[in-house]
């Protein structure tokens, strides 16, 4: 909620702005303190001030309230981030995108904001300079839930430029909500890369002493410098303790918890590596290694692809309507990859219209198998492409990317079934 008209007028007439020291008389009480931004959930008539003790309080004003300016806020010089550029350590490029890992408390709005520049972020983790030289660029600064195809495209281009410039690795601080989508998009768009691209997030914002951002950033830098691995990875806290971070393949990773530090998990495969928060490195499975290839990003994507989560009683008509405006569909079916009999019919019609349909499983764990039951066999006959053990989100990104390359149905089918970026695993171990 924003200010009421009354509060707005009182503030305007006092000429006080946020950060100024004010004297506020209301309801028989008088308070002196720093004018704070209005809290989103505060009453519209409430003005928030910070008392000398450090406490914020909300003061409800009425028509008799008085607000006067006591002292203008002094401009606080912003401390510039200093970045180490000399020496012979390898260079790592940091590309900022916003999100919890790159956030600070904005006392003008009282909220955590993803606006910290990569320079500032790096300057708050001085240990980084013991590992590498740094350069940084803000590609954009948004909450990750606002990310879209254009953002992936411009990020892929920016990453490719850095890689082609010969850096030892690219670290992309990113909001965690859609981290897995971006990592999959970059995996497909970038193809073979000479050096690692590591997306890192934080589940606790970097304004907090308990933030996981420091450990994740340091581990990402250590991974780039200390190993030969060269793929698109997601690196996040491995368990609730501050002990190690897991390195996940960009196409096999998913946020599995709303708030825990170890929310990110590799699905249907083990993490690629583990980086101890003390600096020790452990490889867990094979991956592509560093090379001298030049990157030519293939960023074209078909945006009109839908991802639908099937549920009992899901309306075939609804899906039919949705598919009118779409070029392809990924369905997260039940169990081995099933939908209702009526839905099979809709999917058949969709395929017949030249719109590819890929079946994945809402179980997430395990591989789709359309040979076992009648429904599965019907789906295969309807031309639905089994998505193997791909995550539904990865299948979505892949289908968008594949449709950006070809529209020929048999070509789409072949590409979807082929493991291009480690998104499909042949074997799943106990």
């Amino acid at each position, binding site marked *: 909620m924003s200010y009421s008209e009354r509060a707005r007028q009182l503030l305007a007439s006092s000429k006080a702005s946020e950060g100024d020291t004010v004297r506020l008389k209301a309801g028989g009480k008088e308070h002196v303190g720093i004018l704070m931004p209005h809290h989103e959930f505060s009453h519209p008539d*409430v003005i928030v001030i910070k008392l000398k003790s450090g406490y914020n*309080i909300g003061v*409800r004003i009425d028509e008799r309230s008085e607000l006067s300016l006591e002292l203008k806020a002094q401009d606080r010089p912003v401390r510039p981030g200093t970045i180490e550029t000399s020496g012979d350590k390898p260079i790592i490029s940091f590309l900022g995108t916003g999100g919890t890992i790159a956030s600070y*408390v904005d006392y003008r709005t009282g909220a955590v904001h993803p606006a910290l520049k990569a320079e500032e972020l790096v300057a708050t983790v001085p240990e980084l300079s013991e590992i590498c030289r740094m350069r940084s660029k803000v590609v954009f600064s948004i909450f990750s839930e606002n990310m879209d195809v254009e953002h992936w495209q411009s990020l892929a281009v920016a990453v490719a430029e850095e890689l082609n410039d010969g850096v030892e690795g690219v670290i992309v601080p990113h909001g965690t909500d859609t981290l897995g989508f971006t990592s999959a998009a970059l995996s497909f768009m970038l193809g073979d890369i000479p050096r690692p691209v590591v997306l890192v997030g934080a589940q606790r914002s970097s304004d907090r002493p308990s933030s996981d951002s420091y450990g994740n950033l340091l581990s990402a830098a250590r991974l780039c410098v200390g190993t030969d691995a060269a793929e698109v990875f997601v690196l996040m806290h491995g368990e609730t303790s*501050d002990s190690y971070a897991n390195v996940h393949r960009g196409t096999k990773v998913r946020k599995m918890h709303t708030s825990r530090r170890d929310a990110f998990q590799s699905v249907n495969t083990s993490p690629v590596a583990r980086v101890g928060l003390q600096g020790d490195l452990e490889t867990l499975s094979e991956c592509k290694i560093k090379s001298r290839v030049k990157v030519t990003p293939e960023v074209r994507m078909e945006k009109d692809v839908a991802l639908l989560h099937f549920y009992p009683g899901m309306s075939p008509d609804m899906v039919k309507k949705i598919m009118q405006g779409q070029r392809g569909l990924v369905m997260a079916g039940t169990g081995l990859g099933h939908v209702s009999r009526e839905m099979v019919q809709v999917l058949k019609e969709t395929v017949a219209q030249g719109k590819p349909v890929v079946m994945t499983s809402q179980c997430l764990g395990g591989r789709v198998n359309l040979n076992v039951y009648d429904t599965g066999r019907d789906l295969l006959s309807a031309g639905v492409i089994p998505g193997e053990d791909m995550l539904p989100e990865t299948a979505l990104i892949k289908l968008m990317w594949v449709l950006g390359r070809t529209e020929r149905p048999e070509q789409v089918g072949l590409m979807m079934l082929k493991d291009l970026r480690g998104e499909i695993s042949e074997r799943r171990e106990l």
Partner: protein
Amino acid sequence: MHQMTIGIEIHQQLDTHKLFCSCRSSLVEEEGTIFHRRLRPTQSEMGEIDRAVLAQAERRMHFVYQAPKGVSCLVEADEEPPHDADVEATQTALTVSTMLGAKVMDEVHFMRKIVIDGSNTSGFQRTALVAVDGSLDLNGRSIGILSICLEEDAARKVETKDRQVTYRLDRLGIPLIEIATAPDMHDPDEVKEVAQRLGSILRSTRKVKRGLGTIREDLNISIPDGARVEIKGAQDLGLIPTYVRNEVERQRSLVEIKCLLQERKATPVPIAAKDISGLLQGSRSKVIHTALSKGGKVFCAALPLFAGTMRSADGRLRLGAEMAQYARSRGVAGIFHSDELPAYGITAEEVQVIRKEFELNEMDAFALCADLADRAGPALLAAVARANQALVGVPEETRDPLPDGTSVYSRPLPGAGRMYPETDVRPILIETERLRQIGENLPELPEARTARLMRVYGINEQQSRQLVREGHDDLFEEVSKDHSMAAVAARTFLSSYPELQKEGVELNGLSDDSVKAAFSALSAGKFAKEALPAILRELAKGQEVDHAISVLGLGAMEQGEAAQIIDAILNERADFVREKGSASVGPLMGVAMKELRGKIDGKEAADLLRKRVELFLKT
């Protein structure tokens, strides 16, 4: 001018759910799941890092957490955002604010107060200012109440080993009401009275926890020319006057040291330490030998013109002890200083060698520290920095209370800059209507309660007031449900308790439930009231009532059995009884009670003795 100025902060745990989740708020024995974390200092909202936070960061602590089931969840583990503030806890804070006549904020905002000693997994404590400007009447004087806050308690420290601290999360998040008084007190005993009175107001809400550790006091003490020093977390009300007196003495001696140093025209000492391991290679001092043999070093710093301030001959000036506490906060066992040397295996010759090395004369002092180099160096520098503060006077600091009534340095006094908004918790709008309803339904105030206890239970005013003030009133009412128990109960709480405590009985071991059980056994005639203190002594050790009765041989006695014992006494003293006749009852009472105490009631025993003497004389 007042000789001392004291304000207190009282922290009372509430008996509700935790403040920001639905966990039970109780302490448990289980360790639960173990995990570990590190914390880092961060910039505050205003872009500054707080000095207290930095002091903690220098220690680079590593924290282990125990997360027992039922009393901790993802919120305590800092793995889930806090839920909305507990309604019952908020209501209690508003009630207490109203009882203290304080002005409640229109909208209550939770803040994050940075604390990186590990006691909060998040690295901050959530706290909100609920009300300001109240007052407390005490013996006709008005003591100002500056603020009433609602906050979450910190995790419980269960172990410190080397540089690793272990906390249990059961206590983290228990709601606390914090009441801060104005610095309106000038007498150590008055401080205790204020604390007691605030305690009884809090208890009157019936929403607070009882027992040791559920209420903790911070004492802010200063003297003229001294400084505000906070003694944080005193749990024993009885020790409050002692803490105050000792702190006043400490500050006075520091002021004296300052004057002395000024007279001598002493100047700040360079913050530097010199490695003198070579000079003390063959030292027979155990501390130095141990340090050197594990590859450590001995560092020394000269302190020109400080002689006699580290420890004066009469023991009053003790700057050395202050310096040692600063050094210990950097992880060493302590320091040696020249006022106490030669001693501890350091010889007069070695002292001379050091004095010569630094070219010191008799007015000069030195301090040394032996340990691993990465500890001894910084520790000695901290001690030297503390010595320099003596030139300015009393440093503002936070101190930990010790059970002997003294305190030790813990960290610098925190500044105000370490708070920023807790954006995960919604502010609470306090409607006027809610406050009106609270005002109309306030719990019984201590005065009203004093009057009611007198009226209902027939005890005198002094007893009643003391029961309420010392917090025995609830239990008193419980055990006096059988009104004939009231007099015994009052005497027990007001006389037997202090006597038992003086004997060294750990009264904290005495649970309310076991006291209730003792009274119901008494009321059922299972033993005589004289035996109650003895029973309580056993209960404090953790015994059950029935067990205590049988261990003490207190099974209530049949009259016949008692008569036999009395008859035996009379027979042994037959000549005396015959000579004195019925006048022998008085002198024999003591002898009889020695045998009968606790087994039958005293009055009953006297009646029985009189009857048996009469009978004896007749035969």
